[in-house]
Structures are given as C-alpha cells and as structure tokens.
C-alpha cells in the first residue's frame, strides 16, 4: 500500500504532500526531511528504488522516486506494492507539468489515481472520463 506521496523541489521544499496513513504533523515534517535527505544525495544514474529509512514502516518501507527538472516525486510504499508499477505511475502523474499549476485539481487527480493507498486503474483518459462523469452528475442536480 502507498503510505505517502511527496513532491518537493531540489531544495527539499515540499510542493505536495499526501499521507495515506496518519502521522502527527511533526513526524510528517521529519519524514519529508529524511526522505529528501535520502533521495537528494543519490546520483541520477542510480536506480529509482530505495530501501531503508526508519520512519514510516521500518524495513518494510520503500521509496520509489523520480527526479524531473527541479522536482522530486517520491512515493513511500510498503513491500506489498509493485515497485515498477509505482514508477510508471509517477511518470503518468508528472508527465504533464500543467497539472502543477492548479492546486485543487492536483488533489482531485490524485484521488482518482490513488485511493486509500491503493492504486486504481490508471489511465488518463479513464480518469478524465471519471471526472467528467462526476461533473455530469453534478449537473443533474
């Protein structure tokens, strides 16, 4: 299951954080700091998977990340999640930079991609249909 999705810039400043398991505020900040520390010192050529980190789930805890331009996209997952799948998911989430200009929509899209820490069938067109479906429903009011 996905425990958290973190997006921060090259300086470790968070741009989007979403936790699917509740942590107190200060722990959240600590997780972000530690994750940034782990990820930022890695070369771009090495693999996108990381073990270790003691905060979220001990040895069961993986980091899967991608580094795009100035942003790090990090998914914290437990060992039951498919690592390669997540890697691909990150690619889909961040393929469009325009997404990031609108805060509200990011969360909507994210909630269509991942629900309660589980990845739903991801397919951009599918998501768009879903969202439009919901909008249609709203119109019916």
């Amino acid at each position, binding site marked *: 299951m996905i425990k958290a999705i973190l997006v921060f810039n090259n300086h470790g*400043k*968070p*741009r*989007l954080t979403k936790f699917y398991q*509740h942590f107190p505020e200060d722990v959240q900040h600590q997780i*972000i700091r530690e994750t940034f520390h782990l990820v930022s010192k890695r070369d771009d*050529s*090495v*693999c*996108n*998977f*990381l*073990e*270790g980190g*003691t905060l979220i789930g*001990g*040895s069961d805890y993986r980091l899967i990340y991608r580094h795009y331009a100035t942003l790090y996209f990090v998914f914290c997952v437990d060992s*039951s999640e*498919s*690592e*390669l*799948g997540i*890697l*691909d998911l990150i*690619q*889909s989430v961040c*393929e*469009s930079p*325009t*997404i990031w*200009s*609108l*805060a*509200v*929509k*990011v*969360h*909507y899209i994210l909630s269509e991609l991942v*629900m*309660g820490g*589980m*990845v*739903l*069938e*991801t*397919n*951009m*067109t*599918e998501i*768009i249909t879903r*969202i*439009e479906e*919901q*909008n*249609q*429903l*709203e*119109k*019916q*009011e």
Partner: protein
Amino acid sequence: MSQIMEKTLASLPKLLTQSFSGGKNMKPTKGHPPSQEVQLFMKVVHQARSKSQEANIVQTELSSIQQKLKQSDLIASLGLVRSSFTKIIFCHLLNYDVSCAAIHAVNLAQQGHGYEKRLGYLLSCLLLHPQHEMVMLMMATLIRDLKSANMANNCIALMVAGELVGEDNVPSILPEVIKKLRHSHELVREKALHCLRAFYRSTPSLLQPYLPQLNTFLASRDPGILTAVTNLFLILCQENAARFVNLGPSFLHILDQINHRGFGTNYYYHMVPLPWLQVSLLKILGCLGSMDAALGKAIAPLLQVLIEKTKVSEPISLAVLVESVLTATQINADEELLHLCSRCIGKLLSSDASNGMKYQGLRLLISLSRVKPSFAAQHQMAVVECLMDEDPAIQIRTMHLLHAMANQANVKAVCARLLEQMNKTVDRQFFTEAVHMISDLAERLAVDIDWYLDTYLNILDQKLSSQTRDDLIDLVISRMEKVSVDNNSISSDSLQKLIAALLRVINNYDSGQSVILLSLQLFGVLAPILGEAFSSTSFLFSAETLVSRLVSEWQQTKVTIIKPLSPSCKEVDDSHFENLINIQCCCLDTISKLVLSGSLQVDCVKEWLQTHKCKLLKHPSVSCCLDELEELLQHPEHLLLTSQIVFHSQKTELDMSLSFLDKLVVQNLLHGGGILKPMYIRLSEEKASCQVVVPTSSNPLDFPESGFSPLQSSAGENGNSTSLVSSGMTSSSLRTKNKWRDEEDEDEEHFLIVGGSDDESQRKHEEIAQELFAGLGEVGLTKVIGKVSKHPSKNNTKKWHNMWDDDDDQNHEHCITSSLGLHPFGICKKAQSFSRWHDEDVENGNLSCSLNDDSGLGFISSKSETVLSPLAPVSRLAESPMCNSFDSAHEDVASDTNVLYRSCPGAYAESTGYNQPVLSIYSEGFADFNLEKLNYGMTNPASASASTIDALTDSDPEGADS
C-alpha cells in the same frame, strides 16, 4: 511516447480548464478558470525572491482570508468562498500551516452544494485525520450525503468516509455504506467497496459478517468494481489465505479474461490491459497458490504464458512480468517454470540492464533462491557484478540475496562480505539488518567454534545499541554454555586457541567494551572445562591490565565531565560509565567462577586482590561483586565441595516456558495483540524454506546435533563410505547424472576450455564468485572462452525469442552490443538482449573447468564428467532437500557411516584433514548426508537417491587424491 499518452496530454488542458470548474456546458457564472484574484496570488507567490518573502506573502493572505471567512456567510458569497478555499489549498500544497481553515471546510461540506461541497470535503480531507476531534462534526454530513439521492454526493461521501472515518465512528456509518453496495450505478458500488477496504483496515472485526457478500462482485464485468474488490481481497488473503482458497478459480478466471482482451481497449495502459488489476490478482494467486497445490498447478500455465509473452516495452509491462515471476516462485511450481523464471531473472540482471532492472532482478532471485538455492549459482557473475555496483540500494539487495543463499559451504565468505558491507554503510537501517543477518547465519550455519566466536567478536566490535549488544552476548553465552556442558565437543587444542584468542581480546587496548564484556563472560562460562589449558598467571595479568586501563579511562572521562557538557554528551558519558562498571563487575564475577571451578588458586587470587583492590571503582555494584569474591576466598573449605557443584546443569529448575506469564499473554492476545516472534526466529523462518543442508533442530541456538559436527567425520570415514557406494553404484550413477544438470543437451556440446584469464578484475570477480557460490549446485566456476557448438541450444531457441521481442529471425550468434535507442527506463533493445542470451548459454551450459578448491588448484578438462569440483558432493546434496531415500543397499551404507560417525565423537580433534580444505569440505558433505539420514530416515520416491549416489561417486577420484 505511446499514442494514448499523447491523447492524454492533448486532452489535459481541456480537462484543466473545463471539467473541474464545471465543464463547458456550465453557465459562465459558474464556469471559471480560477478567478483572476487567485491567479494573481499564485503569481505573486511564485515570484517571491526568497523563502521569507514567500512566507510573508502567504501569511498576510491567509490572515485576510480568515477575516473574510469569519465575517461572511459561506453560502451567500460563492465567489469569495471559492477563491479563498482555492488559495488555502494552494498554501497547503506549499506546506504552510492552514489548520485554522478546518472549521470552515467542515461547514462548507455541510452547507455547500456541488462544487462547493467538494471543495469543503477536499480541504477537510487534507486537514483532518481519523483521530481528529472535528471528524465527529462531519459524521452527520457524511451520513446525510450517503442517504441522498444524488450520486455525486454519494460518491464524494464514500471517498471521504474511507479517508476520515476511524475506528470509533465506523459502526454508525457502516450500514449506509453496505446499502450502497447494491446501488444501481457501478461508480457508487465501486466507491463503496473502496470505502469498505478502508474500514476493514481500521476495524476488521466489524466487517466479518459482510465478507461473504463480496464474492458476488467477482463476477462483475466492470473493471472499476473488479479492481476495488480485488484490492479488498488482497488484504484478506494476505491475512488468511486458507480461508479464500476456494475463490482461487474466480481470480484465475479474471486474470485469464484480462489477458484474453476481455475488457475492451479503454482499459489499456501503455498497451497493457488493466496492469494494476493484474498485479493485484497475481499477488492474490501467489498467496492462494502456496496453500493449495491443485490451484498452483492451475495457475502455472497462465504464468508461463505471461512470462513468455509479455513484451517488455514499458515499465508497467515489466511490473506485470516481475509479479508473474514472483508468483511463480510462491506456488511450488515445477522445474520447467522455475527455469523460465531463472532465465527471466538472467535478463534483468544482465550487465547492460539499467540499475532499476537489476534491483528488481535481485529481488526475484532472492525469492527464487528460497525455493531452490542452486538457481542463484546460475547468475553468479551477475551477482558479483551487483556486489561491485556503486548504487547502495543494489548493494543492499545483493546482501539480502547472499543471506538467502547461504549454506554451510559458503557461510564464511558470505559473512565476510556482510561484515565488509556493514563497515562501509552509513545507513543505520541496513546496519541493524546486517547485524541480524550475520548473527542469524552464525547461529544456523556455523561450522566451527573459532569462526563462530570470531564472527561475533567482529559484530560486537561495531557500534551497537545496548539492547542489541546484550541480545547478541546472550546468544553467544547460551550457545557456549551448551558447548561447555557437552565436554567432548571441544578438543583441548581448539580450547587452547580459544583461550588465547580471548586473552588477546582482553589485552588489546583497542578492543571495544562489548567485546571485552563478552570475552570475560566467556571465561566464566568455560570455567568448568578449562582444566590445564588455562594459565592462571596470564589471566590474572590480563585482568590486572584491564582493571588499570579501566581506571585510567574512568579518570579521563571524569576530567571531561567537569567541563560543561551538552545533555547528549552527558548521556554518552553515562552509558560509558555504566559500561566501565559493568566490565569491572563482570571481571570479578569471572574470577569468582574460576575460583569455584578450581582453575584459579585461592592464594593467587588473594594476592592479586590485595595489590589491585585499590584500582576497583567505588560503585555499589562493584563493591557487591567484590564482597562476594572476598567471602568466597575467606572460606576456602567450601571449595572442597566443588566436585558437587554442577555448572550449567540441564536440570535447573527454571520455568523456561514462562508459564507464569500465560495469563498476561492471553489477555494481550485477546486484545488483538500479535504473537511475539524474536528477531532470530523471524529471520530463520524466512529462511526456513531455503534451508539446504542444515539438520532440523528444535532449538535454533543449537549447533547441528552433536556440537560442531560437520567437521567431525574423519578422513577415514570418507574413504570408507565413498568406496562402498562407488563400487556398487557406478553404473547407475552414470545414467542418472544428467538428471541433475541444468541443460539436457549438455553432453552434445563441446567446449574449448581455457583456465586462467589475463584480465585482472575479471579474475577477481571470479574468485569472489567461487567463494560465495560454494555449495550451490553449480560446479564452482567455469571459464569458457571459446565455444565450438554445432547445436546452438535448440531446445530453447524458439521459445526465447518471444520473451523480449517478437523478431524471430535474429541470429543469436551475433552479439551486437551497441545501445541504440535506449528506453527511458533503460530497457535494452533486441541486440543487447541477444548478446546476453548468448552469454547465458555459456553460463548455463556445461561447466567443466573448475578452479574451485581452496588450495588454488585448477582442474582443466574437456569433458565434463571426468573432473568435478570438490564441492560437487555438497552441492548435489544441497540441490535435493529430500534426498533421504535409499534402496536397501544404500541403507546399509548409510547406516554404516552413521555408526562410524557416531562412534567417534572426538574425530574432529584427531582428524588431521581438518586443515586441508578439500577434506574438510568432504567431511562437511558427509556430515550433512549423515544428519539428513538421521533426521528423516524414511523412504521416499527413489528418484531422490540418484543425487546422493551421484555425489558420492563423483567425489571418489578426489577422495583418492587426498
């Protein structure tokens, strides 16, 4: 980029400008890209020059928003509400504290409609969590929205309920959610299932009565519902697979449907149909297949198709492939499928693959080598390369692999690697894992006592937490106690060495405190069997230097403590003092024990105490120990009773089952607590499946049944039994030999073998491989430089073209390694995969040149059967864990060896062959053989005996040599 992605990208702007803000058909008053005001605010924030400036802007804006929200009616001023909430969410995104807006969000969710309601819910989800007090306020709203006839409200409420409703509130909302399972629209049913999954995580017991209802959803045709219900079943199966085994065929059917294009192209993602659902299904099938052999058999063909047919063009298809292999390793698959997996892993590990792929390959190899350790040996060079990789993540994974494939033959090399890695790493998490892995290996696989202690001394030399340190010391002490009780298990020679080593540790100024602590305690433990081996003067001398050293350390720290210290520094010092005191106590304790056992003369000790008493620290615990010792010394007549003192009596009246705690344990279990498993048991459980040659033993702390047995069987026995078997069984062994080779056509292939290579680094890698892969089924290491083959592995040619690409007319003899057009993920194009494949043929092919004996001799041969590595017997045995069946003739042989083996328990000491690697490896092999015989001693299908015979006969020429 795929067409779908292009389409997606093209449609995104549309999505962003229209759908969220109401869609193109909305009235202009409602439709809006975020208002001018919001855009302006975002722009200002983005243009901020410094962090503090940005914070300033945000804070000012937030306080003004709060003012406005307080004053105005939420519903009356829609525009204001929208822009304010959007700004708040934007600030939250930038990680500013906006918790003050939570109450407004809750209100908006309650009072708003449509878009506003969703905004309210969204912000509530961001700011609240299940334990938050304001969730109570949300409950009424949620239930109302669930009851509403509006589908949009139903959906959003179900989503939010899944995120925000915690343990306490589930009962009140559950009935409504269950009702939604029968809603007419798929979307609502799907969301209800997601919501139930979230509830199941927090309160599994409440949902039990509703679980049977879920089965019907497996027949659904809607991928959304299938995904939701599969994810829910995934949790259920991981908890209790046995309960859902009967659903296996349904899951299999769904997976089959997906792969037969049953769900239309709408659900393709990078050309893969429903990949996430596939991965979840494969996980479930892995769980269920491991429980039920029939189901496992049914799954196997589908897995084979998946592994063969999956085209690795995108990471997501690789994800499905990896998951398929993982499942295949869980379902007790047959040889053929496992070989397929092994080849697939070979591709992932190939040297031109990207790091990400190697990482995945290692993970699969760990899982595969748990099923059958010999598979790891097929990829030895690749693994060694991973070991040298610069990427720490890959190094760590490789370490886990080494741990998984350790056996008695390679345990020393593996531990040495682990220790080396442990010293290098900066990752605390891995460090602790490594400590546990090494101690696990030492406990399970240690072949001799020197190495065992040495390993522990090495680990204890590291910076460990005091808890871990004490645990480890306890482990060693309890093991050594057992050894010392069983007098025969240590020869006087090795005891002498042991004592010398321990004294060295104590005398060494650089020794860490935990190492000294352990050494001192060990003297106490060994006291009863020390006898003449022990020189009292040298021990007392060491004790003296130790005590004086402690005093000087004590004084040094005292000096530093006078200076003002930070709290953390003080903590360190406290633990340092504690350690010093501990060591002194321990030292006195040990002296008492030695006096009691008669190893130290009372007079000597008295004298010693007189001179050095002043050096002891003034601390209650130390004085206490000192008093005890003095008391003992003053009544030497008591020492006459020594003969009656039983050290470490097995009959001690200790309630080791801790039955007096039963009540507490039961209480805890009733409250839902898990069953405690100590780390070493957990580790050994993980390893249980890959136990190769380790005899079963009720207590994980025991050495294989008779002390350090593997080395005990003497050279004479080997000769004996080998000749017995070989004389009788030569003919059959020749016939059966092939069965245990990897390639069936190996005999038809001829190799030109050249031992030795010019390339230094290559040689180094090979040496490492030799060490690490000892006893793993492959014959040591081979160097095949030229291959003259008339039959380019015909068996597999056709099949394997499919795995990575469809082009059938590639000539695999041509190795083109240019890397054109690398995929972003680093998936290599055809040419590369073919070159790899060629290598693999070589690797999997006949292994005939062995450089594998420790004395460094190389055996060069052109025919595989004639020369075999000395490790062959061990490895063959390792390969067939059930080689416990013999027909009557072998039964005799086996029992012969057993008798021999049992009748000379001291053989270890006398065996001159111990120092000769070849012999020691042999004796290992035979000890294993015997033990397995002892433990299982029952008859099984005759096929298994072949390997044993094979091994025995193979070993003959070597045995004669030595």
